[in-house]
C-alpha cells in the first residue's frame, strides 16, 4: 500500500513545517518549479559569516515537498554551505536505499518514498532550491 508514505513523521513535518514563510532581507532567494507537476518552491537564505543563519520557504507543493523543506529549515541553520549541500547527497542516498547519516539523519523519514519514483522529485525539489540559493549567495 502506498499510503505508508503518509506516516506520522512526514505528516507532522508537512503540517507544521519549520521555516515556513519568506525571510525579510534574504541574501539569496530562488524559485524552482517541477515542470511535470507544477509544484513550486521559493527558498530564502540568510548567511552570516559564511554560515547559514536563516532559511525561509514558501511551498506550493505536496506533503512530501513540504516535509522536505521543513527538514532543510530545521537542519541547515548553523551549517556551512558544504555541510548543507551534503544533505542533497544524503537524500539521494535515502531514495536509493541507503541510511540517512548525521547531521541529516532526519531525512530517514523519506525512506518509504524510495519505491515511488514519481515522487522522488517532490522531496528533491527543496534541495535543488537550496543548492541554487547557496550558489547565488556565494559571490556576495
Amino acid at each position: 500500500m502506498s499510503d505508508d508514505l503518509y506516516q506520522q513523521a512526514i505528516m507532522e513535518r508537512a503540517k507544521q513545517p519549520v521555516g515556513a514563510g519568506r525571510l525579510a532581507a534574504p541574501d539569496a532567494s530562488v524559485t524552482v518549479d517541477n515542470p511535470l507537476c507544477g509544484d513550486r518552491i521559493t527558498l530564502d537564505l540568510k548567511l552570516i559569516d559564511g554560515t547559514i543563519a536563516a532559511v525561509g520557504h514558501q511551498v506550493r507543493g505536496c506533503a512530501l515537498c513540504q516535509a522536505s523543506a521543513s527538514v532543510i529549515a530545521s537542519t541547515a541553520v548553523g551549517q556551512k554551505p558544504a555541510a548543507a549541500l551534503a544533505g542533497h547527497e544524503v537524500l539521494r542516498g535515502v531514495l536509493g536505499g541507503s541510511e540517512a547519516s548525521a547531521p541529516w539523519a532526519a531525512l530517514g523519514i523519506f525512506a518509504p518514498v524510495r519505491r515511488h519514483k514519481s515522487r522522488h522529485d517532490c522531496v528533491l525539489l527543496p534541495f535543488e532550491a537550496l543548492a541554487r540559493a547557496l550558489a547565488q549567495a556565494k559571490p556576495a
Partner: protein
Amino acid sequence: MSGATAFDPAAVRAQFPLLMRGLDGGPLHYLDNGATSQLPQAVLDAMIRFETTSRANVLRSVHRLAEAATDAYEGARLDIARYLNVPGDEIIFTSGTTSAINLVARSFGEGMQPGDEVVVSLLEHHGNFVPWQMLRDRRGITLKILPVTDEGRIDLSALTRTVTKRTKLIALAHVSNVTGAVTDVAPVVAAARTVGARVLLDGAQRTPHGPLDLPGLGIDFYAFSGHKMFGPTGIGCLWAKKELLASMPPLMGGGEMIRTVTVERTEWADVPHKFEAGTPPIAQAVGLGAAVRWLMQLDWTSASAHEMRLTQRVLDGLGRLKGARVIGPSGLQGRAPVISFELAGAHPHDVCQILDGFGVALRGGHHCAQPLMDHFGVAGTTRASLALYNNDADVDALLTGLDAAAAKLR
C-alpha cells in the same frame, strides 16, 4: 461485433484485459481515462493480426503483403472517417492531438500576417495553447484569450468583443480536460463566420464518448488522439475540409508526400498524403480503425447514460465530502465525465497517492492547463475521468478513498 447491441457495462469491461487483470492482485479502479484510456482486446487483436499477417510498408511496393498493408491502412482511414461522418481523404494521420494542432499552427498559421488574431480560451490544454503562443512569437500575430466562467466553461459571451476582422482562427477545446465542460459550438461558428475566421476544435476529450457529425458542427479543423479513445498510442488525426487542406503547405518533407523531386524543386502529392511524410504509423492506424469500429457497434444512448449516471454519483459524493470543491459544471448539462476537484488543505499528488493505495488511478496536478490553474488560484486539481467501462465499484472505491485521504491529509 456487428450491428448495434444493447449496452452492457459489465460485458464491455470484460473486453479490457488490463482491467480484468487488476493491479498487484487487487482490483483496479481506473479513473485516469482523460490521460489515456485502456485498450480492448479487439484492438489488440487487430494490431497483432496486422503484425503477424500483413506487416509491410504502405503505398510503396506491389507485392501481396504491401497490398494487404496498404488496404489495412487506407481502410482504417475510411473507418475513422465514418466515425466522424466525413470523407476519407479529409483524414490526416498524425502522431496525436498535439502534433495535429502543431501542424495547423505551422501550416495554416504560417499564412497569417502580423496583427492577425488567433482566439483560444483560458481553459485550453497546453497542446492547444503553446502552439499558438509559439506562432505569436514567430509571426507577430495577436493571441486573444476567452475567459472562463465560474463553472469552468469557456465564456462565450466574450466572443463578440473578442472576435474582430483580424481574427483568422478560433481554436477551442471541444471538451475541457480539466472541468469536463462541453463547448457549445454553434455560437463559436457563428462568430467566426461573421468575420471569415476558421474554427478548430481540440476533440481529444470528446472522441472517446461516441461518434460525431463534424459537418453538422460547421467547423473547419478537428484534432484528436488514438490513445484516449481505446486505440493505440503514437497515432492521432487531423480532420479538415479538403479545399482547406489543399490550400495549406506541408509541414514535413520526405517520402510519400511528393509527386516529383528534382534537385531544383519538389511538387507535393495530393491530400491527405501531402501531410503524411515518411512511413506513417501503420499498425497504429490499423489499431485506431479497430477502435472506432469497436466504438461504432455500441449503443451510445445507453453508454452515455451510463457514463452520466456515474458522473452524477461522483458529483454527489464530492458534494457530501467536507472541503471538496468541484472545479467545473455542477450538473450534467453540457458536461463530459471528467471531474476535477480541490480538497481543501490536501495537495492533489497526495490525494492521488493515497487513492492509489485503494486501487484507484486518478490524476493530480495542473493537467497541462496551467493558465486555468492560475485563474482558479490553485496549483492543481485532482481529476477523476471516466470511460464507458467504469462501474459503481469504481465510484465506491473513489469515494471511500477520498474519505480516507481527507482524514489523513488534514
